[in-house]
């Protein structure tokens, strides 16, 4: 499979198309239950008022409920979506409640929470929906007053007649408005006229998260619900030979022990489930369960052999003769290798899912990033019509891509069907950290040549990694190839520089392994960005130029010129003092552009310490600046962990790190002061949740070189070992 074919979106499209058709005649909740007042926004789709254009519900008292069709895992969609709807609907955010839409692609469109897509993907539709609903309410009022629509306007949940100053609240109009045809065209507000968009409206989910009342997946309870834990294979792809549950069944509360499986791309992973009346009992039963495993039918991956394979594959990538010719013409040349590890998502809420499977229907609740895919997947695998599969999103205790995979809901449904009872399947931290899928490690060989002016004339990036999605196919990846000359779509790799570099070449080598891999916050850009932006810095040094000035030379796009100018101001770049190391990096992914500058120094013991991180996000048109700042702050913390603290390694066909004692996370004392700034422009909305992550590791590595002369080419590295 060609690397350029494996963008996440293509992959999902293929996955969705191969599953059941994503269409619904009508949405029918599997079981009736009421959600009259939405405190915790898990809903079955029943709204407490009259529906207007699917997304909006208004009750006679004027209470407005807005639907959020995508999951909330901390990234702020739960706030950003109603901000967009409310702006054009002309209601105050104080007066609205928010509910999670259940999986229903016909009604709410595609719902996958991935690709930093919420605002950039949904702004046009939500603004238009809000505006249409407003116009329908105005039309209903005009009809009531027998006046022209043009005499009326809407403000704060009320339609007002300009001439008579008569007023009708939305609650009194919604029944009639809902029967009207939505207008074919509506005028959207100018950005300067926004009252809600562009403002840091406090997030409505936060008060639920400061008193313990937010319902995450693990907090979902159903009457008669049992709990299950699963002894899963530790070595990838081993299968259950037999098991001895004699001791397990003696544990009070344990009711069932049986073999289960879990779909992982084209394979099934096996395990033995222990079901009990309480989670504690299930865990105790699992402790005394004895399982014999068949050896896997594949290699037992180990980090050392994987890395050897990646190095060998890099050597096998085909040559671009045109590139070689241009590279050879360069007076100054540089070649370097970069290495990045596998990573675990390690969301704070371990995986879990609650399922209630009956003869003709499936209903699940959980921390879910991929409601539509899960609905289609369960429908197909259990042969239940899609309209009888209800998927409800709870709050997610982190996602980062891991909760966009349908394996854990399948397990819960499988067990519920077997025991004919509602069940919550809980993964322990160890289960969560060792099963994967993981972010794949990636190795790089980079070549760069400078012309006589010290500008990059030729640049080559060859990558060896386990491509995400390649395990979907039973066919091993093809021959390593020279994938593109002045073309190719490698997210985060040389993206912004292509206009400024005359000759560039990409090559890719898919590394085959039974380790399951998938997207992790910012996906390929999380590793590509480190290799590319570190190497650009190496070339700047080779050219004897200031790293920021060198980037300005190679990033001709005015948007990048403005970004670099602003970064120069914010960092006071010219004031660089002695005994300081400064590094900068800029990456682009999911249409968001972000720059980081890292300032480091040595402490009294001579150890390198980060003094400050300055981040500059250019996401174009935006909704909530405080959420953007929060996302970038969090991305920097996550990137700091991945760069300097943890990695997943493999021995004997299994992951070595099982919990936070061996997979250490950044803690409050590790966090330097972080400043986040947002570029003001009228570009299209760009991604936010992921683009803030990739520039950190290269900016830090560049700062370390600036201070110490030592070039970091492998992640993770320990700051304590830099002197």
């Amino acid at each position, binding site marked *: 499979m060609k690397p350029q074919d494996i963008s996440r979106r293509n992959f999902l499209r293929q996955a969705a198309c191969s599953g059941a058709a994503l269409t619904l005649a009508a949405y029918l909740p599997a079981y009736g239950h009421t959600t009259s007042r939405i405190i915790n926004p898990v809903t079955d789709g029943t709204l407490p008022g009259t529906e207007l254009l699917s997304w909006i519900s208004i009750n006679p008292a004027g209470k407005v409920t807005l639907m959020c069709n995508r999951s909330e895992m*901390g990234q702020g969609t739960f706030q950003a979506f109603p901000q967009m709807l409310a702006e054009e609907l002309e209601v105050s955010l104080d007066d609205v409640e928010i509910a999670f839409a259940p999986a229903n692609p016909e009604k709410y469109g595609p719902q996958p929470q991935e690709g930093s897509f919420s605002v950039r993907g949904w702004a046009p539709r939500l603004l238009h929906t809000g505006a249409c609903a407003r116009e329908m309410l105005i039309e209903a009022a005009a009809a009531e007053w027998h006046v022209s629509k043009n005499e009326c306007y809407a403000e704060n949940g009320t339609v007002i007649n300009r001439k008579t100053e008569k007023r009708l609240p939305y609650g009194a109009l919604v029944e009639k408005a809902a029967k009207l045809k939505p207008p074919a065209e509506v005028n959207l507000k100018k950005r300067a006229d926004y009252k809600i968009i562009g403002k840091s409206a406090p997030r409505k989910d936060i008060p639920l998260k400061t008193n313990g009342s937010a319902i995450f997946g693990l907090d979902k309870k159903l009457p008669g619900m049992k709990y299950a834990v699963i002894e899963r294979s530790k070595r990838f792809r081993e299968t259950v030979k037999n098991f001895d549950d004699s001791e397990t069944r003696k544990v009070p509360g344990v009711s069932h022990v049986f073999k289960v499986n879990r779909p992982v791309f084209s394979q099934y992973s096996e395990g033995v489930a222990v079901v009990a009346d309480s989670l504690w009992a299930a865990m105790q039963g699992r402790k005394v369960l004895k399982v014999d495993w068949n050896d896997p039918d594949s290699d037992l991956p180990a980090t050392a052999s994987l890395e050897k394979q990646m190095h060998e594959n890099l050597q096998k990538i085909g040559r671009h003769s045109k590139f070689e010719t241009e590279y050879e013409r360069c007076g100054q040349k540089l070649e370097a290798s970069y290495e990045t590890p596998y990573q675990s998502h390690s969301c704070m809420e371990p995986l879990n899912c609650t399922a209630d499977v009956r003869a003709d229907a499936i209903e699940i609740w959980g921390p879910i990033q991929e409601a539509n895919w899960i609905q289609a997947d369960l429908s197909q695998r259990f042969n239940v019509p899609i309209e009888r599969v209800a998927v409800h999103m709870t709050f997610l205790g982190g996602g980062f891509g891991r909760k966009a995979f349908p394996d854990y809901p399948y397990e819960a449904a499988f067990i519920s069907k077997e025991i004919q009872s509602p069940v919550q399947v809980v993964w322990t931290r160890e289960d969560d950290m060792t099963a994967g899928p993981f972010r794949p490690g990636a190795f790089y060989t980079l070549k760069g040549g400078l012309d006589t002016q010290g500008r990059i004339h030729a640049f080559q990036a060859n990558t060896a990694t386990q491509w995400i999605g390649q395990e979907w196919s039973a066919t091993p990846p093809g021959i390593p190839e020279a994938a593109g000359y002045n073309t190719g779509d490698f997210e985060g790799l040389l993206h912004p520089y292509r206009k400024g570099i005359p000759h560039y070449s990409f090559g890719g080598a898919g590394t085959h392994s039974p380790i399951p891999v998938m997207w992790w916050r910012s996906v390929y850009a999380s590793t590509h960005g480190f290799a590319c932006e570190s190497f650009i810095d190496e070339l700047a040094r080779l050219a004897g130029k200031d790293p920021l000035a060198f980037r300005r030379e190679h990033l001709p796009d005015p948007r990048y010129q403005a970004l670099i100018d602003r970064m120069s101001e914010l960092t006071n770049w010219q004031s660089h003092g002695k005994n300081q190391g400064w590094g900068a990096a800029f990456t682009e992914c999911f249409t968001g552009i972000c720059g980081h500058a890292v300032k480091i120094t040595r402490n009294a013991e001579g150890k390198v310490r980060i003094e400050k991180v300055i981040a500059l996000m250019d996401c174009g048109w935006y909704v909530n600046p405080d959420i953007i700042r929060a996302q970038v702050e969090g991305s920097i913390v996550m990137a700091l962990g991945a760069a300097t603290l943890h990695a997943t390694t493999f021995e004997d066909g299994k992951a070595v790190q099982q919990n936070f004692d061996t997979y250490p996370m950044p803690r409050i004392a590790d966090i330097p002061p972080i400043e986040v700034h947002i570029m003001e422009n009228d570009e299209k909305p760009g991604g936010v949740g992921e683009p803030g992550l990739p520039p950190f590791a290269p900016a830090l590595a560049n700062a370390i070189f600036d201070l110490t002369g030592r070039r970091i080419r492998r992640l993770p590295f320990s700051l304590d070992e830099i002197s």
Partner: protein
Amino acid sequence: MSSYKLSVNGEAYTVDADEQMPLLWVIRDLIGLTGTKYGCGIAQCGACTVHLSGAPVRSCSFPVSAVGEQPVITIEGLSEDNSHPVQRAWIAEQVPQCGYCQSGQIMSAVALLASNADPDDEAINAAMNGNICRCGTYPRIRKAIKTAAGYSH
């Protein structure tokens, strides 16, 4: 199985539990207060932090049999209406992202402020370093603790 009398958030509960059952699961599954979270099970992440006689403990690794007569306070015991100064500060600084670790963060912060009304950065580091936040809300946690300290001045 034994019977234990517990005081949780000022309420008396009697629970039947295995003596090794961690307080976390007693609180969540037997008493039904789900604000306290499971994160690691080995006292590494702090998501399960509750107060025992006012001191923060990792309830995932604290057997119910060791509680004795010490009163337990969970996140639900701070206030029902988010009126506790630390809750107010957490909202004012818009701390939570996913929110899963925040009950534990808040309980650690409340314990810190009870013993140190005006903590400096080092005191905050020492008291809060047992609580992991994967979303990376640490800068705001630091700020919110200082904001909360200001409320009570």
